[in-house]
């Protein structure tokens, strides 16, 4: 029915699911050929903590909204999911547009229009919740758009800078 490749903490798992949940709520899952019985919480809000039981092992896990990381008492791990049936991997971000991740005030702009930047280079300082937050370049390239100046208030998701 479904086959997925799960990248988790630098390991790769091939997960196959061939049938719907049984009467007890468990789904038979094969992970790298190993058979497991897995139950998960009924689809709730994506923000909620999910519970799951694998065979007799209960888990509480917290997935990101976009399922790019998972947190449990065993730590926080990067996650990558590829649905082989769907044929395509989900698109990655990194299109060079920097949007305001939180509302705040621009404390400082560290680049100029046309300037070339490398990945991770500080672009601007966004002040919010009494903290100065450094926003860095998601990719290398030239600054093609620069919409902000120091002192300016920005709203959530406002386009601040574009790199191309």
């Amino acid at each position, binding site marked *: 029915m479904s086959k997925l490749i799960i990248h988790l903490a*630098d390991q790769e*798992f091939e997960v196959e699911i061939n049938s719907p949940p049984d009467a007890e709520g468990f789904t038979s899952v094969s992970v790298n050929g190993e058979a497991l019985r897995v139950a998960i919480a009924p689809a709730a*809000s994506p923000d909620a903590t999910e519970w799951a039981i694998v065979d007799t092992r209960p888990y509480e896990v917290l997935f990101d909204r976009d399922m790019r990381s998972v947190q449990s008492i065993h*730590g926080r791990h990067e996650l990558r999911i590829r649905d082989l049936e769907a044929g395509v991997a989900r698109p990655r971000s990194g299109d060079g547009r920097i949007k305001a991740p939180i509302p705040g005030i621009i404390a400082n702009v560290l680049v100029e229009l046309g300037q070339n930047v490398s990945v991770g280079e500080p672009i601007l300082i966004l002040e919010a919740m*009494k903290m100065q937050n450094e926003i860095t370049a998601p990719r290398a390239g030239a600054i093609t758009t620069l919409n902000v100046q120091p002192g300016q208030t920005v709203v959530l998701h406002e386009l601040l800078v574009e790199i191309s």
Partner: protein
Amino acid sequence: MFQKVLIANRGEIAVRIVRACRDLGLATVAVYEPGDMGALHVRLADEAYMLSSPQGYRDPEEMLTVALRSGVDAVHPGYGLISEDPGFKRACATAGITLVGPESEVSAQVRDKVGAIQRVQAAGIATTRPSSRTFDPEEGADLLAEAQQLGYPLVIKSCAGGHGRGTALVYSAEKLLNIAQRSSAQAQAAYRDGRIYLEAAIIPSRYIEVPILGDHHGNIIQLGDQDGSIQRNTRKIISEAPAPNLTPAQREAICNSAVEVARTFGLRGACTIEFVLDGAGNHFFSEVKPRIQVEHLVTEMITHIDVVREQLHIAAGLPLRISQAQVRCDGHAIFCRINAEDPWRGYLPSPGLISAFRLPGGPNVRVDSYAYAGAEVPVRYDSLLAKLVVWGAERGECLQRIQRALQELHIGGIQTNLSLLHMLITHPEFTSGNYTTAFSHLKLNVPTPPDSQLRDLAAIAALTYLSRARTARSTTPAAYTTGWHRDSRRLPQ
């Protein structure tokens, strides 16, 4: 005792003060900026006044107007905001309203950190070695000269804050001015005061703090030592009491020094005396925090003393109800500060709607918070979300319990530092008790769980992915674009 108290603050500390007042049977008056209209400290108060000035909580004049209009006989300003505004203190005094906190002159003395150290030195107590005066970051030549005299490595500290924002270690003259500039900017943003001073660095070091209570009748008691060495992103996020691995003689010496310092300044109310401990175990006075601290919960857990209650008693002019001999520091307590921030994205603050909030329970666990499922973490204020503290008969029991409590605590809808805290409190350096301030800078590699657990998590991720995809398909297209597929939430790395 007072009849009615104005709480000139917001968030967790405002809620904490409302609770202390209610436990004493005092009426409470809350204030709120428009965005805090439904906040918990407002809901729980007897009266609430909107602050309409653009300065909001930071406007001493409007605060005084509310105090007069509501007819309170005391104001508790908590910490931060206008809690140490000299003008507000004077205005309250003139109006005959008691301000819960140190008097203006004491406050001014300890806020002048270089002066305070010099005064303590004069009283014969060992102190850290500060620069001769404070500086503006523009005073480059003077700073370099002073640094030369102190010697490297040295610490740049902000005049306004504590060990927090603005504190930076400098190893050589080349970097001094750059770092000084940045420290000053950070302090300016956080405390609206960019002045800095220098201090000879002590490496390795621990921060040992001693909370004290002083009344208006000359009585001063100390409430035991605690360790506040562990910071992340310039904030103390873990404290414990008593400080681990000190000899009884060391504890006694530190606590005695704290009481002497308190006497030197004539401190009243609840204050904390901070020391730096060097590798050889010598302690050096560093500064006085003349206010209730974020981590006062550790003190409360080991002493069974409600510190805010005592602040109110003292401010009302009552003598301390317990003597030093009656203070019993019993067992051990560990405190965690839970912030709305993402440690994996440079501690980016994470405001928003709290969609899930499950508190730990059971014996010897306490959480203080303004939050609950359905509450909003506002954008404008500090990221402090909740304070967690546990008690145990001894440290080992405490370590088990704090792990358990962190496992039970779940917060959804926003990012928090819970995973980071879990890693820290299970780290061998922390569990051994042999940590110093260097632990604050340690890069924490997420330990890889055993293969069997990773395999289980992979299976759970796969099923969850399919379940979410199904849910997304079965609802309207709008949900598809605003739900977990939404790309715009993704932050630049």
